[in-house]
């Protein structure tokens, strides 16, 4: 199952856990399953059916443009990082 890295600012909702193993085939499913275990997490990450503005989801280090629909492998690592571009 995929490993979700919990941003430090959310760890208050995960009883201090910084990594959580969650099942799910897409980022969306994984966040729903995460929410089931740690209520409140989803609202911090998702707004109006999309990943919140200013947040990007990275699968194994690659920022995904697909957001909640992004497929996730069994072995994947998932990170929530600032959404950024450059100059």
């Amino acid at each position: 199952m995929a490993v979700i890295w919990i941003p430090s600012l959310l760890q208050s909702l995960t009883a201090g856990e910084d990594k959580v193993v969650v099942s799910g085939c897409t980022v969306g499913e994984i966040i729903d399953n995460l929410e089931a275990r740690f209520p409140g997490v989803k609202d911090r990450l998702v707004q109006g059916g999309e990943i919140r503005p200013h947040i990007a989801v990275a699968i194994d280090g690659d920022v995904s443009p697909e957001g909640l629909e992004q497929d996730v492998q069994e072995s994947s690592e998932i990170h929530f990082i600032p959404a950024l571009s450059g100059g």
Partner: protein
Amino acid sequence: MAETTTYQVIGTRPIRHDGVDKVTGRAIYGADVQMAGLLHGKVLRSPHAHARIRSIDVSRALALPGVKAVVTSADLPPAEDRTIQLGEGAVNLKYLSNNILAGDKVLYKGHPVAAVAATSPHLAEEALALIHVDYEVLPPVLDVREAMQDSAPLLLENLKTKSLGQETDKVSNVATHTQFKSGDVDKGFQQADVVIEREFTTATVHQGYIEPHNATALWNPDGQLTIWESTQGAFTVQRQLAPVLGISVAQIRVIPAEIGGGFGGKINLYLEPIAAVLSKKTGHPVKVLMNRAEVFESTGPTPGSYIRVKMGATKDGRLAAAQAYMAYEAGGYPGSPIGAGMMCIFTPYDIPNVLIDGFDVVVNKPKTAPYRAPGATNAAFAAETVVDELCEKLGLDPLQFRLRNAATEGTRRPDGPTHPRIGYLETVQAALDSDHYRTPLEGPNVGRGVASGYWFNVGLQSSVSINVNADGSVTLVEGSTDIGGTRASIAMQAAEVLGLKAEEVRPIVADTASVGYNDVTGGSRTTFASGYAAIEAARDVVRQMTERAARIWKVEPPEVTFANGVFHHTNAADQRLTFKEVAAQLGRTGGPVTGRATVAPRGVGGAFATHIVDLHVDPETGKVTILRYTAVQDVGKAIHPSYVEGQMQGGAVQGIGWALNEEYFYSNTGVMANASFLDYRMPTSLDLPMIDTILVEVPNPGHPFGVRGVGEVPIVPPVAAIANAIYKAVGVRLRHSPMSPGRVMAEILAQGK
């Protein structure tokens, strides 16, 4: 794998396709656009850094003969207070609209308040003086730390601090708090034998592109809007304009002219909506140009910042922990590159315990825009000079220390994910082996400094189509505006796939109606992502051309192979058709061939640079002279080495200017005192030596040819490298940028006491 591949076109140095137009003065930039019935627009800007607008009276301006229209924010549709995703990041529509034409408040000196269209630019300017604006002047706040205090004047009445989806109740100037945490820094610092903690400040600086912003708009009565301008992203302009003007994307066509530099500063909307509503009101095309002072006072700058860095290392020279507190000035509206600064500050290193807190803070300065590796130069100035102090305390060569602590493939970044194949270690090794570093530096008051830098690069979205001509040459249609030779670097990648010469590919930068969506030329993405699209489009051409060859031979496509521009029949070795021969028969074999690709590539390879600088400090004046400079960088695979070198040299020199003299001087009322190229001191040719480059090629596995973005990272190390060299030269540590002669002299005198 790409190392071993030999290329026909990639790695060569053909003359860029748009070159002749640009050396003969024929290239058309935004300000060069002319058309019948053209009116000229000028923008009235706030003389105050912070004020409430009580009323605006435009009647006298409208009465001036030759004046055709005046617009204010009332001429833009009411902007919703809602954040939308726009490819390169999220934008709050209300902030976006109010920054174009101020609503009830002006938040910086130069904030647009109204605009005039007239029959000549001089008349339009005279009309501005006839507009009366009644301001309630408010106290400004110009420094990030002052803006964060409870007592500070508040810029935005409903701004609350967001931290990862949570919002504080208190209204303040702090827009966001972001945090990266790994391991336990307290434990790490306990394990460290040497711990250094320092505070740094950096002044507001500007991208300094030589071409001022411009926009020409024609709004037809049927609601069709056409924009001609110099922009880094025609599609981004189109996407942002639609909600700002309340019309559909399809109603807007943006025709990108040549662009005279951007460096991130020509992504945001400024003049386009103003030109558009002026055109709508007058029924004429309207051209609006900024002058240099407007560019400085109303666009660009990259944040002034306050950064506190604490780093610890063990006796054996290993980093044990690193902590940073970073506060960046966003300008009048939220959106400083604080997140990018946090992503870059410690990323060259493998550090077990890291804690980074970052704050995005509004102040009464122009809304900041991206500037070449936005946020990373400020960050590297802090971290890389603390690293230099650690090396001194530990008695270690700064490059050897970096070798020992360098992040490599698999190292976890402070923001969480692990590094893919990167070339940081290789840049440090190349610097160690360089003639520059191995040549002793002698003489009084001279010093050598080194520093490294990271920029993550981005991919985003690109589209390319390739049309095959009857003579076997091709036309490549792309949507990435060409700021530094990307027509060539994109065309060369297609040529490589098609077995053509670079000159046989004619690249065209098309408008938003003529090619698929493309994100901005920015984030060091163009040669990577649009190049990727060109490769895929070329492969699509090869697939179709293979079918045509098969049809000519009356065989199945799988029986036809293509290599080096020639099709072969697998069952008849003697049978061969060149790309040109097949192209000549397209009409008889099914019609024209157009290859297409749209991509949103992953596998963006991060970029690392290590710079070496030798300089002299005049101990009587504090003036720094750069004696020798070498920029080492992992460039992945250099498609056109000359333009890769050019990016490294140009970035290094922008960094040198940042380090030595560039800064916004503000009066205490928030008025910029040096809004001109005379007193905003960018380097001239006389201030510099040649800039040596060492291209390290560690191919990016995420790109067919190994390309990494190269444009941004070269601006990251220079400020820190120069600070470190000044210390070696005269024994003073500068912790404020720029390190202008007066500041260096003050440190030298203080040291003497």
